[in-house]
């Protein structure tokens, strides 16, 4: 432990603690802008670039004052150090720096998507900036959007969070700092459209952007138009991770579960049928689990089959392996994601059941995710141009919609989802957290394979926020080796390991693109780097699971019913047609042509 004095408060901190963290221990919150950390989740962005967190070191290691101000985020405390965080020199510098940043920022806060959630706005407010003394050139760049992500980098403050996320955590490498000096900005190669780059639309750049430079593509008005169109039957599905995060947008504690209130709100918004993606998550387990057992049995019989099986629920991940591992397209499960399974069931089975033409049904999904917006627009998920899922809204968009409709979520009655696509099990609920799909699949696969009930259905080893986990589950004498990871850089390592001969002998690997799984998705309320929020969402997820009467997908009566009534059996002919997909080589190549 070392002794430091911050703003005349004497404190003891561990060696290697930054001034920023030491100050927080002392209850002093030094403002930051570029600094970003997901504590305990191996993500720290510390370029030391914005210079907002500068402090004055009045006594340094040598007993003398430091010549320049020091960035608190990146300066370690040393024994006997004395620091001022609000001396006149610091305040003047900090204000001037923020004024400079604002002088190169379009001040359209009122219309900005990020308004209210913007860290620069909060900073200007905190510092009481009332005018910007500098007038001068402003950076202007082309606006650009993919199906999920909007880029308006006129607003970029060069915090580099998106770049770190895209490269270090996701290893997608779509974004890089380009140019230099005043023209420096984060952009795709050649400042091409992000959609033409290696971007997989995971949207994590949006989740970490402090300002409105990276935002989501807003589909609220599309959904409102559908609801207002009397000729349309509008069906909504809500993903598992939404119910544990939506409350945050309404001032509730992180980890508050709002499943019932959400269902009521959706009805009040005017959706005709309020269903649950959890239901199709159970369906996914049936299909994917069966596929896994099929491949394992083949291998046990000495036949050729590709192992390990990778999950395919996460569209960011699907896009990632299509772009980066075109030689391994036979590894991931062919099962569609729960969103797309739901869409397929809704527009085939359910539309037929209620006598609505496919074209007259609009399926809306509420997702914690930005990639889902791109997923539902894929051609392979359309029939004659009509998509199985028409629009995908994020948790944040749903919150905006609820607010716009003057609905007070806090004081709503709870209600249930509609039938028959509404009932779900605890296995489906935990899809939202990293390791959840694996746990759900093991619960079902074990019982289907062994014919015996699983003694302890809580597979604790695959829970938690570590980036990569592995476990071996004894399937009655057959050791099944499973792996779980989130973050596409971790996934890349897994893929490369498998490509190099799968030395650890994995049978089944779950991959989620976002930190902590869907609960940390890019469409969730902004966590601003507070990993406790993600942890609380995770805990809520497992709480919801524990409270469910049925916790194994194959025991969901509606699932059993639909196989009986419609699909016959998992991985059967009709389910292959409707519930499975195939993958494409989407890698970028330079091809040779003649001279």
């Amino acid at each position, binding site marked *: 432990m070392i002794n430091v004095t911050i703003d005349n408060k004497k404190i003891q901190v561990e060696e290697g603690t930054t001034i920023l963290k030491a100050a927080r221990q002392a209850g002093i919150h030094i403002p930051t802008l570029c600094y970003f950390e997901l504590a305990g989740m191996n993500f720290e962005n510390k*370029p*030391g*670039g*914005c*210079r907002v967190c*500068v402090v004055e070191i009045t006594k340094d290691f040598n007993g003398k004052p430091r010549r*320049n*101000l020091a*960035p608190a985020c*990146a*300066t*370690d405390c040393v024994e006997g150090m004395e620091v001022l965080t609000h001396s006149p*020199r610091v305040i*003047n*510098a900090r204000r*001037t*720096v923020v004024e*400079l*940043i604002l*002088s*190169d920022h379009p001040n359209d806060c009122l219309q900005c998507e990020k308004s209210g959630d913007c860290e620069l706005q909060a900073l200007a407010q905190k510092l009481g900036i009332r005018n910007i*003394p*500098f*007038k*001068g*050139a402003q950076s202007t760049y082309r606006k650009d959007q993919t199906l999920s992500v909007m880029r308006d980098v006129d607003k970029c*403050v*060069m915090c580099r969070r998106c770049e770190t996320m895209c490269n270090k955590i996701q290893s997608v490498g779509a974004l890089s*700092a380009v*140019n*230099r*000096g*005043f*023209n*420096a900005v984060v952009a795709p190669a050649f400042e091409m459209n992000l959609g033409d780059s290696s971007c997989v639309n995971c949207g994590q750049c949006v989740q970490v952007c402090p300002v409105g430079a990276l935002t989501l593509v807003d589909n609220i008005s599309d959904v409102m138009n559908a609801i207002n169109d009397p000729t349309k039957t509008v069906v909504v599905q809500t993903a598992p991770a939404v119910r544990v995060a939506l409350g945050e947008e309404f001032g509730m504690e992180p980890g508050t579960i709002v499943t019932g209130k959400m269902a009521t709100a959706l009805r009040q918004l005017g959706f005709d049928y309020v269903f649950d993606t959890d239901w199709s998550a159970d369906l996914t387990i049936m299909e994917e689990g069966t596929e896994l057992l099929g491949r394992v049995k083949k291998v046990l019989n000495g036949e050729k089959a590709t192992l390990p099986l990778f999950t395919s629920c996460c569209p960011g991940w699907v896009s990632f392996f299509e772009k980066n591992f075109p030689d391994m397209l036979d590894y991931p499960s062919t099962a569609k994601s729960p969103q797309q399974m739901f869409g397929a069931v809704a527009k085939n089975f359910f539309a037929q059941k209620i006598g609505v033409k496919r074209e007259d049904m609009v399926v809306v999904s509420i997702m914690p995710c930005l990639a889902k917006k791109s997923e539902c627009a894929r051609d392979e998920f359309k029939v004659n141009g009509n998509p199985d899922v028409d629009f995908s809204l994020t948790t944040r968009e749903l919150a905006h919609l609820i607010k716009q409709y003057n609905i007070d979520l806090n004081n709503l009655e709870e209600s249930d989802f509609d039938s028959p696509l509404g009932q779900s099990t605890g296995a489906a609920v935990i899809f939202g957290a990293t390791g959840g799909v694996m746990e759900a699949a093991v619960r079902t696969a074990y019982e289907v394979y062994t014919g015996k009930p699983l003694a302890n259905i809580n597979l604790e080893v695959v829970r938690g926020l570590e980036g990569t986990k592995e476990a071996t589950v004894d399937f009655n004498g057959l050791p099944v080796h499973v792996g779980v990871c989130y973050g596409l850089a971790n996934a890349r390592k897994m893929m490369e390991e498998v490509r190099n001969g799968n030395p650890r002998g994995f049978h089944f690997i779950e991959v989620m693109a976002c930190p902590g799984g869907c609960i940390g998705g890019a469409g969730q309320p902004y966590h601003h780097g507070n990993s406790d929020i993600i942890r609380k969402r995770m805990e809520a997820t497992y709480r919801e699971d524990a409270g469910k009467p049925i916790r194994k997908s194959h025991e969901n009566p509606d699932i059993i019913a639909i196989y009986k009534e419609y699909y016959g059996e998992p991985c059967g002919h009709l389910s292959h047609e409707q519930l499975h997909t195939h993958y494409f080589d989407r890698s970028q190549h330079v091809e040779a042509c003649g001279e």
Partner: protein
Amino acid sequence: MTKIKTHVLCCGGTGCKASASDEIIANFERILKEKGLQDEVQVIRTGCFGFCEKGPIVKMLPDNTFYTQVKPEDVEKIVNEHIIKGRKVTDLLYLDPENKQHVSDSKHMGFYKKQLRIALRNCGFINPENIEEYISRGGYEAIAKVLSEMTPQDVIDLVTKSGLRGRGGAGFPTGVKWGLCAKNKADQKYVICNADEGDPGAFMDRSIMEGDPNSIIEAMAICGYAIGASKGLVYIRAEYPLAIHRLQVAIAQARECGLLGDDILGSGFNFDIELRYGAGAFVCGEETALIHSMEGKRGEPTLKPPFPAVSGYMGKPSNVNNVETFANIPIIITKGAEWFSTIGSEKSKGTKVFALAGQINNVGLIEVPMGTTLRDIIFEIGGGIKGGRKFKAVQTGGPSGGCLTEKHLDTAIDYDSLMAAGSMMGSGGMVVMDDTSCMVAIAKFYLEFTCEESCGKCSPCRIGNKRMLEILTKITEGNGTMEDLQELRNLAAVIKDTALCGLGQTSPNPVLSTLDNFWDEYVEHVVDKKCRAGVCKKLMSYVIDKDKCIGCGKCAKNCPAEAISKTDYIAEGHKLPSMSIDTTKCIKCGACMSGCKFEAISIK
């Protein structure tokens, strides 16, 4: 066998090469052969002599005759007169501007008299592409001494004791730096030579590499031994093809001689050197940015600590020194710390190489003991201001430094005195200005450079410098206010205080020092809308004195903007009507004025 009686040293530095020194050498070789003298006279292409103003330089030995501004066609005469007949070619000798006497021995020229060449000891003396010449001047004896007689700690102690400070800018004690790196244990360490000289108007490192590459190689090996590194890397600007070539040749020869590679001089010490190329980014002179660039990344600096001595190239402990620092090392080892510490001032030992440039008679590369006054450098070595004009300012330290004035002329320059005067040593650019330079425009010039070279990582440098430049532009265009001057000061102070790296932290220096030393000139631009030097175009106009104008019309022909036309007025004694300038069309290029033989055009 005939003995070689004469050596012809011809400068092969970039400056002299640009004025045909290659042709001169070729002519020597051809003519000597024609005359059958090729075995008696040896022609050597050396590195820079320093006296670039008078290049190309040809030096004749043994009588030490220094021919200046030699043209390829002069060679025949030199051979016939000097070599064959032993008579000096008087009109190629340096003409002392004071007493109008021809000087044949460079030692007696003002330019060389006060110089002391330590880092440049071999430049202009040996053939840099022949390791044997370096060896025969005692080269590689320092590494031999180190390997056979000294422990690594001895080496560090000796360098520390010598008082050598880093020649790249801030002047950190070299021995201490080595000690920090030596302390850290690692399976691999690196010796890095910073040869990314990007300072506009500075070329000392390039000249050393071109003129004496082996001294760098030897010094890096010594450093490697001292800190425990077996790999050396030279980060060199790709814009320096000749220096790259010379280094490559020297490295190859050193390997061949076993002075690089495994088991050097049978000591068991291994060391080898690779080159890495810069690609045009001034910020890469900053050591963390340089390391990132070598790793194949954008050359953006990162915060220190961690210092490179702890985590440098590839995360391994690395020691970064610049070229000139290294060039001092071998001679310090052989001559001893005591010898070195007797040279220079109290806290800055040894000599410093400066690239002397600007409005000065003797532009060139000079090396003087620390503590020499600016006056000696500018008026003795530099030969005073060109055209007999008035000295106005001298800029040291490039974009990180400041402008010093008359009152600083007797300052004994070293790291600390320059810093105290609001400038800095920097890498050693020294640009002299006369009254034709506008100090606001000079501040703007440097800021333009910084803005162009800012990496853009931290906001004060990325946005702050841009805003400062905008304010300066406003002032030079006559739109400045007194509040702007206040804002300039505040911005400059904040940028200095908050920028991430050395480039950003020092970038306001040219502005601050001109504000301090030339406040009147700023106020003149702001209040009187006047630029006394006649540099700021928006603040001046060209006028024709109708009584002096003879109406020849040359100005109208020269004018690219068709802004000049005839008037009706014919001055007394002239036959043609005078001309006049339409100020609304005038683009202020000055073509009219420079072409007028009758001094009828002036700037108002």
